[in-house]
């Protein structure tokens, strides 16, 4: 995918900003890539998106006036990825998990444990969720974010993070044991 931002270096920051950027932002490159990877469901796309997001964060950095730097960076990553998802209407991303179709029944812990032991299955299940559910799960379970950080990154009101996570987990559980809902009652 051609991208006007890529292919050239960023403007050079002032010396002290450069040092601060390297100390504060660069260590979160892994978080940036991981979030992009799960939002875009493709390692190759995530590389490009994470690179673009890092460049943007570098440009925006003089305007960063403190706070949670990882949340600040992941906000930029998320925005970059959503722009990509908008542009990339190949259809895949439009077939979101349908709660009604798959039913709200919750699978048993045993069925979950068995299904969850398969990395591939877990990956597919997570990828089958809509991005807004995928991101809260990635931020909470993989990135260890607090509700407050999730709220900052995703722009979900802090009061709704818990219920969003609840719905996301329910969907993941159902997706894990298959569309039939596994052996749940």
């Amino acid at each position, binding site marked *: 995918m051609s991208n006007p931002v890529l292919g050239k*270096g*960023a403007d*050079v920051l002032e*010396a*002290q900003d*450069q*040092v601060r*950027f*390297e*100390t*504060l932002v*660069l*260590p*979160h*490159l*892994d978080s940036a*890539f*991981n979030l992009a*990877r*799960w939002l875009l469901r493709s*390692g190759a796309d*995530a*590389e490009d998106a*994470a*690179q673009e997001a*890092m*460049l943007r964060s*570098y440009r925006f950095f003089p305007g960063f*006036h*403190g*706070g*949670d*730097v990882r949340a600040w960076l992941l906000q930029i990553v998320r925005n970059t990825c959503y722009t990509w998802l908008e542009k990339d209407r190949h259809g895949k991303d439009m077939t979101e998990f349908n709660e009604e179709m798959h039913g*709200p029944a*919750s*699978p*048993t*812990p045993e069925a*979950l*444990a068995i299904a*969850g*032991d398969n*990395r591939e299955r*877990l*990956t597919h299940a*997570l990828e089958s969720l809509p991005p807004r559910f995928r991101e809260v799960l990635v931020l*909470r*379970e*993989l*990135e*260890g974010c*607090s*509700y407050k950080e999730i709220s900052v990154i995703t722009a979900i009101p802090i009061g709704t993070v*818990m*219920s969003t*996570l*609840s719905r996301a*987990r329910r969907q*993941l*559980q159902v997706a894990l044991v298959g569309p039939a809902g596994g052996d749940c009652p």
Partner: protein
Amino acid sequence: MSCDRADTILHGYFDNELDALGAAEFEHHLEQCSECADGLAALKSLRSSMNRAQLYEKTPAALRKKVLADLHVARPVVIAPARTQWRWLAVAAALLLFAYAGWRVVSVFRGDNHETVLAAEVVDAHLRSLQPGHLTDVLSTDQHTVKPWFDGKLDFSPPVRDFAAQGFPLQGGRLDVVNGRTTAALVYGRRKHLVNVFIWLSSEPDAVPREGSTQGYQWLEWRAGGMEFCAVSDTAPADLEQLQRLFAE
């Protein structure tokens, strides 16, 4: 689902987001509600599955290289912290940013760019050292262990002395890079604070200490015996001056 808490509070409890009172209340509820108890077991199972599957996607080396090239980063960066270390970074970030406004004002008035950059580098190195596992390469309070450790690793012999009796117990040493030079870093304790003393070779004449504060950290720099010393800490400036006098004795 008939218990509405299974879709709400249960998750807050599971994620440690409830306050103490809320958590205690919910635990009481858990004893009586099998639905929430089952729900909690399912959440635990799901989380341990996700942990076992190691879904965290590692950054490809090629991406790291591209990003460093884009952002004009010539020197090696701190490798991304493990998940348990991010709180440290958050603390460091908070300290850095808290002091940043003050620093901008100071640097405008001082106008000494070289010194500013050096101070920033030294404070940067100090902050890096505070991350878990970065503080010391040789962990010893014994100067006769630390000093030989540097042999062959540097083209000079840093003065390694323990000042425990004077309130600065030696904690260890490591190699570090400051301003593109390999330096010896000695780590001293000072009450509950840590002091990094960076030492590198210098061809400049001896110089009396200069002190300053960058990003909320105190630093004291001096030259003696063909070496440049820079002590950095969040302790009081007087402590650094005392340490400098101990080195001079």
